[in-house]
């Protein structure tokens, strides 16, 4: 599966509070509304610049903090194609796969905001079209890859009945 979009670059340790601020949690049963505020505390203008299909690119430990699944879900609903980061916080990583949001571990140093990226999930490759650079994506554990391919944990379990390890 190939995805093309622009990169929006963030630094290290973007927390779940940056992604979905607590003060908007009254919107949590109305996810499309909550999704209008994603990344607001990391970049107040993010949603003005962002177009559905774009990528979020970050440094290390993306998604640290809360276990709230609203964070990856809001990114997905906002239209984020994938998050590409040097590393992810554990719970966020798992939640993202479970809701069907691709999360890719790669060296993001050469990517800048506005760069046009092409991501090939099957090949595990990020192509920076603007800069003409290819970046390898770290393989996803097999069990998570299977879940991601089915679009998330719920659809995986509905189809297969259970998870086999």
């Amino acid at each position, binding site marked *: 599966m190939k995805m093309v979009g622009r990169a929006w670059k963030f630094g290290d340790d973007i927390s779940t509070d940056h992604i979905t601020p607590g003060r908007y949690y009254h919107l949590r049963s109305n996810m499309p509304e909550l999704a209008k505020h994603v990344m607001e505390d990391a970049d107040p203008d993010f949603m003005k610049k962002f177009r559905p299909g774009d990528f979020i690119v970050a440094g290390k430990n993306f998604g640290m903090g809360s*276990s709230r*699944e609203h964070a990856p879900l809001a990114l997905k609903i906002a239209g984020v194609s994938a998050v590409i980061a040097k590393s992810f916080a554990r719970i966020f990583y798992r939640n993202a796969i479970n809701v069907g949001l691709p999360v890719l571990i790669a060296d993001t140093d050469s990517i800048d905001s506005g760069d046009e990226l092409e991501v090939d999930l099957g090949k595990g490759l990020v192509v920076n079209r603007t800069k003409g650079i290819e970046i390898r994506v770290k393989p996803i*554990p097999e069990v998570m890859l299977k879940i991601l391919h089915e679009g998330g944990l719920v659809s995986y379990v509905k189809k297969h009945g259970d998870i086999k390890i």
Partner: protein
Amino acid sequence: MAQTLVEKIFSKASGKEVKAGEFVMANIDLAMIHDITAPLAIKAFREILGSDAKVWDKSKVIMAFDHQVPADSVHAAENHKMLRKFAEEQGILNYDVKGGIAHQIMVENHVEPGMLIVGADSHTCMYGALGAFATGIGSTDMGFVLAMGKLWFKVPESIRFNVHGKLEKHVYGKDIVLKLIGMVGADGANYKACIYSGEVVEKLGMSDRLTMCNMAIEMGGKAGIVEPDKTTLEYLKAMGRPYEGELLKSDEDAEFQEVELDVTGMEPQVAAPHRVDNVVGISEVEGTRVDQVFIGSCTNGRYEDLKIAAEILKGEKVASNVRLIVIPASHREYRRALKEGLIEIFVDAGALVEAPCCGPCMGGSFGLIASGEVSVSTSNRNFIGRQGSPEGKIYLVNPAVAAATAIYGEITDPRKIK
């Protein structure tokens, strides 16, 4: 095969001998859900099993409302109403708004050494203070657990933090864990279990151990753990449920990554804005003017924390520029503080004492800060916007620093007063 406590718990829960790094399917002993994360978990659960779904074992699922308590809006009230109905239909134990913070309820009433526990909240790692393996999971994983009673895991490696030396007056478990987070960084223990050990930890009471395990997630830890000992058994007995089962512990020659800390001469520690690993000694931030002080949360809202604060606040008044909010962590802690006169001390000092709940720590309910304001808090996170305005600032401290700060209106070293 020499095993860590973590490997032993996963071996027991998966029915085969496992090592760190292996992927396993493990049976869950207890599952905790609360008012923020339960709705999505229930949605996933019903999508998996259908609208008439029943949880795998109603005696193993515990619900509590603590983030928006008492209901702070019609929206929160509707949410509580829906969850109440779910608990009734399923026959699961629901503490509703009456128990306090879910994590504190869990350790007081349910957690036992050696258990494998999941909670739909990142601070579930606190329960490891009783020798259990407990970890926070997202709502969809929780939906799977509610349906199947099991979950897949990668068995984590363990970091053993060996804490030596002698603690100064007004230096507590909070300061030790803040120091460790500052040392290893916000992702220093990502995917790993944090086992706190050494002569200092052995002497710590359960309240301090809970504080340290609670904050394991702030260095990315999958669990915080203290190997069970006499203190663990005494705590369980004091909670009215003496434990006589097997006490799993790490083998002497098990494999750990080791981190050493000598706390001798260490001053109270402060996590400065806007990162929990931005840790400094109090001398670096003393004198910072403060608008709000919060004493409470699952990190530091227990009777022991309230007692430390009350001893400093006794006969004193909160500074005119400060609002002090005190919230006991649970109904049980509240009653004990009330009986022993602590609540009267807080009220006399001019504090606002609220009913047990997460309070300002959630940042979406009450007790919020405005732009440009500074909060000093005994809770566990100081991220931007965590307690209200993204233009506010949060400093994380121990309860003695919080109490001294409330009196003087600026960040104050409790060792320098009285």
